[in-house]
């Protein structure tokens, strides 16, 4: 399928439009709330909750007896919340650390879910097959009501974020200050955790248990590299999330046999890699360039200082010297000489060099901390 065909299909084809819209909205929700998860250092909570949701889904199925999507979501929400609060209970009340608590809840809840799942598989109920999609996610099963639900969750989280913006901001960067201001930190915590669990639960159907954590983290981790401002970070994360959803769906639609969930995650991962490498402030590329520049400057300064030590012994600082005497000096190259000349620190005449007044002053103050010697 070509790109044009794809775009015309998005407009005309009901299924494709629903899926694209659904994954995009999911990306936005996950990006927004994931930013908080990353900043709260709860990145792996998403992984734990998505696994912990399984027993809830299965129990809801066993109780309701039918594959009513909303019932299953409520089940997932309840068991996800139970898991989350048990995790914080373990961390607060015992000496087990958060990673152990996360791993425990993740594996124990999921295992329990698997046990329950075997009972479902024995039921003579044709609808049972639908449960599998929660494990590995099937964006293709999204219908309009699912998208509406996602849109509602997006609206609610946006509203809550706007309402409690100041409180959340203070609480995430300075919890003690927030407490001393009299904000009800426990209440805010519960609200944020509930929203994150909600986002995970609605995403399960689309990308599945395993990949949900990346859906939550990747856009936020990518956005974090571009800005130090929380508002901009959340906005960027939402954009990255939406783009991952749209591109992932597009790639999966144009090449058959590839499931949407993994593709969305891989697209998000590409965003992360690009941000890690190319972001101007924190990116690896620019960091390397800065290091390289600093190293060069350092060598240049060393050479300049060496010249200064020589020139100092003469009455006339611009007394010419042979280039040869620099030969055994580390850091001296033809390039660095030229570089020094470009900066008018020295003048080169054939095989002789001489320090200029500017270079002399510069070299004199080179190791003087008081003087701001950056240039």
């Amino acid at each position, binding site marked *: 399928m070509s790109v044009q065909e794809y775009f015309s299909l998005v407009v005309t084809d009901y299924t494709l439009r629903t899926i694209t819209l659904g994954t995009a909205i999911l990306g936005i929700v996950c990006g927004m709330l994931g930013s908080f998860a*990353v900043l709260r*250092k*709860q*990145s*792996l909570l*998403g*992984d734990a909750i998505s*696994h912990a949701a399984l027993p809830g889904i299965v129990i809801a199925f066993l109780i309701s007896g039918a594959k009513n999507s909303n019932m299953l979501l409520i089940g997932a929400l309840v068991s996800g919340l139970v898991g989350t609060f048990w995790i914080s*209970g*373990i961390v607060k*009340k*015992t*000496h*087990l*650390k958060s*990673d*152990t608590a*996360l*791993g*425990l809840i*993740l*594996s*124990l*809840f*999921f*295992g*329990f*879910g*698997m*046990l*329950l*799942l*075997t009972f479902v598989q*024995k039921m003579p109920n044709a609808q049972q097959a639908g449960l*599998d999609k929660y*494990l*590995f996610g099937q964006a293709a099963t999204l219908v309009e009501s699912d998208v509406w639900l996602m849109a509602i969750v997006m609206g609610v989280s946006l509203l809550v974020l706007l309402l409690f913006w100041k409180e959340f901001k203070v609480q995430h960067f300075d919890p003690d200050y927030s407490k001393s201001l009299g904000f009800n930190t426990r209440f805010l915590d519960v609200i944020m955790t509930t929203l994150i669990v909600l986002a995970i639960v609605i995403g399960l159907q689309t990308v599945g248990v*395993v*990949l949900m*954590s*990346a859906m*939550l*983290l*990747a856009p936020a*981790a990518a956005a*974090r*590299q571009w800005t130090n401002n929380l508002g901009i970070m959340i906005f960027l994360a939402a954009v990255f999330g939406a783009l991952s959803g749209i591109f992932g769906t597009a790639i999966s639609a144009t090449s058959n*046999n*590839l*499931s949407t*969930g*993994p*593709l969305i*995650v*891989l697209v998000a*991962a590409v965003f*992360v890699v690009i941000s*890690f490498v190319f972001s101007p402030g*924190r990116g*690896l590329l620019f960091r390397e360039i800065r290091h390289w520049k600093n190293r060069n400057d350092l060598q240049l300064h060393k050479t300049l200082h060496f010249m200064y030590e020589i020139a100092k012994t003469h009455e006339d600082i611009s007394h010419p010297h042979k280039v040869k005497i620099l030969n055994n000096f580390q850091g001296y190259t033809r390039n660095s000489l030229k570089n020094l000349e470009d900066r008018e620190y020295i003048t080169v005449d054939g095989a002789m060099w001489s320090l200029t007044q500017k270079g002399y002053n510069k070299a004199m103050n080179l190791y003087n901390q008081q003087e701001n010697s950056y240039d």
Partner: protein
Amino acid sequence: MTSAQIEIQLIACIVAVACAIPGTFLVLRRMAMISDAISHSILPGIVVGFFLTEDLNSPWLILLAAFSGIITVVLVEYIQKTGLVKEDTAIGLVFPSMFSIGVILIAKNAGDVHLDVDAVLLGELAFAPFDRLIINGMDVGPKSLWVIGTILLLTLTLLITFFKELKISTFDTQLAATLGFSPVIIHYGLMTVASVTTVGAFDAVGAILVVALMIAPPAMAYLLIKDLKRMLVLSAVFGIIGALLGYWVAHWLDASIAGSITTVLGVLFFFIYLLAPNSGLISVLYRQRRQKVEVHLLTFLLHLQNHTEKSERHINHLYEHINWHKVKAQSVLDLALKNNMITIEDSIISLTEKGETFTSEAINYIITNKSAAIEEMKDRFFLFRG
């Protein structure tokens, strides 16, 4: 019991012990989530290995898969070292990406691969005895038994050989480095063992049960015991109990073995979490409540010591002054009376000699910043604890 049943239980027990050993160190080193990451990110390794060998129990496949587990660890560490994101975020980014690559590799070659993502994640212990290892026409047992048995032997050998190094580097990295053990080598050695164990076990019990067996038994042991050697033994015992009990529960319910082993572990953990003598929830809550009352008592005694005038020491006045509820004030008052620290005459409270000494000593510890010594002091003075 049929021989297949015995074999299944044997495999489950060996897997449990093989997982408990690296698991203990992972839990102590605060890297428990790495086991989850490894268990998912071995998928691409398994898929590639399966293309090449067409055999889920081939040693090459196990090595390849373990290698992709190690790549995950290296990647996580590299990302973490750049300082762009925290360690947990790095873990959360790497393993879903690896897993996605695995899923896509399977989907791309769906025609010629008989490999199911479900099978990798969930495993099916009940089928393990059907895949036999045949040497020279002789049936020597299920393949997975040999695979995991070899891994357990290797792990045990490494554990015994490097026990001292592992112990020191786990509890004091800097000391280990100054003594000349490379923390990096020990770290990657541990990661390699964890990866190999995960890969060796996933076929039989599934990735999730591997994670459960690696984390839950050591966590339970850690709640009960603080000695490394005993913790290792106890985690292995818990693992075996979980495996055997889980097997029979599954047998009785006719359900997934991996699921029921995990569930049994979960129930065990829940009880230990509640009831562990010193670190369990109930004992922690009890201790916190007691400490709270005892702090109140100390505040109360200090108040008495500070005020010699009678009006300040009248019972009713105290209720108002320290601003406590009646019930709370009464319980503190009772505690002080029981411990012979105060006497009450005509509703006027005064410190006894013992109360006097206790308060002076306590205040001395507090102002010299040795509050911890107060606990020991309580043992000396208190006849009844709060």
